[in-house]
């Protein structure tokens, strides 16, 4: 059982939990969202700053368990500096990994530290923790894009 626990709490996850990357809310930003996990109360406030189709910055303030905190940290590492299309594709890959019930082989080339969450997919109760900030990011990015299109037309 301890092996399974270690599978869930990979060192990478614990590292990101203790030293989260890109944490804190920053300016400028086009959209800000607040997402909660109603079953456990984990919360994230997340801002997205896009420029010329690129994710310039993702900043966040969050409270929650190690999985949710580490996941937000890994998310920012993966999407900041990437074109929005590519970031969305990474999002999709992470989503598929999380919803794969532990049967999806993670792609390290795409997900980098995100592969550490492969073990989380075997714990149905924790998948929502891992996806909290990712869902918030997608929501914020979609809003920022809509706002952008609105401004052009």
């Amino acid at each position, binding site marked *: *059982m*301890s092996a*399974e*626990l270690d599978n*869930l*709490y990979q060192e990478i996850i*614990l590292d990101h939990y203790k030293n989260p990357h890109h944490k804190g809310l920053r300016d400028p930003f086009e959209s800000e969202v607040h997402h909660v996990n109603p*079953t*456990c*109360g*984990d*919360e994230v406030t997340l801002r997205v700053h896009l420029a010329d189709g690129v994710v310039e910055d993702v900043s966040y303030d969050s*409270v*929650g*368990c*190690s*999985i*949710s*905190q580490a996941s937000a940290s890994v998310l920012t590492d993966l999407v900041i500096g990437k074109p929005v299309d590519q970031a969305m594709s990474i999002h999709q890959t992470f989503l598929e990994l999380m919803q794969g019930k532990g049967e999806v082989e993670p792609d390290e080339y795409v997900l980098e530290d995100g592969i550490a969450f492969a073990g989380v997919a075997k*714990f149905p109760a*924790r998948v929502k*923790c891992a996806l909290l900030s990712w869902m918030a990011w997608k929501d914020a990015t979609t809003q920022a894009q809509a706002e952008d299109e609105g401004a052009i037309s």
Partner: protein
Amino acid sequence: MKGLLPDLEVIRKDFPILERTLAGGQPLVYLDSANTSQKPQVVIDTMVDHLERHNANIARAMHQLGAESTEAYEGARDRVAAFLNAPSRNEVVFTKNATEALNLLARTIDLGPGDNVVITEMEHHSNIVSWQLACERSGAELRWFGLTDDGRLDLSNADQLVDEHTKVLAFTWVSNMLGTINPVTDLVARAKAVGALSVIDASQAAPQLTVDVQAAGCDFLVFTGHKVCGPTGIGVLWGREELLNELPPFHGGGEMIETVTMARSTYARAPHRFEAGTPPIVEAVGLGCAVDYLGHIGLDAIHAHEQAITAYALEGLQTVPGVKVLGPLDAAERGGAISFELDGVHPHDIAQVLDSRGVAVRAGHHCAKPAHARFGVQSTTRMSSYLYTTPAEIDALVEGLHHTRSYFKVG
């Protein structure tokens, strides 16, 4: 240990689930009874027997099975009435759960602008949101008792809160998060003094205290079946008969009517007025058996057991560095649910590590977000014991917490 149920090992044998093991061959240490209790064999057997031998719809089937099923269902009402020391069986309304019972009251008690409803900051969401909705609908004002730092009701402004415009005073008997046992008779007296209706949420009290509605003196009281060793899907609304018969119907449908024409209907008296449609029959039968089971062991003995285990747990938790218990620290003043924080580890992670050792606890806000906010915490870990909990299981929890600290390299 003083206060433990003398036949604890025998009682544990009544609960087949306690014998199962979890992944890795770990024995189950079930410390989540405030969430839902486990079920004794006699409840399981009674429900199976009903389904195997007596199943039929009630009150309308004109055959022998229908008569047997009706007798079993109405027999459960008698047992619940006895459990609550209710003056009349007509005062026991079966609902889906405590939440539905509270919503029934919040929907049917007449409120209007100028009225106020008083609740408390330590309520379960079901006793907050249902009244928020009622106040939004009616224009009544929602007020609440705050909490003291040690997790009790702050009664210092009680005379201002409960005034001549108060229509309802609704409060929990035992807090599901803090464990606090509230001063029921004092609160009921305050409601009575201003002519307000008193509503008690006994969801956490009914499993572990003697709930006597006549001694409590309240107008309404609710509890849920699955926390008193009964099944899910069945709850109870108790109300004084004359008050229940003054309330308008909640759901319309079969069984709650006297007569129906296309233009209008007249309604049955309580309890049937509030039991529209085919009720959860086998669940009611199971609940009747469960309260009988508790009555046979004795609520006083169960309460003493809970207090002994709670005191032992409070003591054990103090040995874990970084543990902070929320709510009263004196076991005599609290129920068998203890919410706590562990410095440096999130409740979800604590629960996960404990689960890997077979220890089942709850992590989160326990449907009491305002009470958590009051103490500046987002979530907590909660252990909750019951009549089958042993001191050795508390030891397993405490060891598990020490292990959690080392796993997350705290301290």
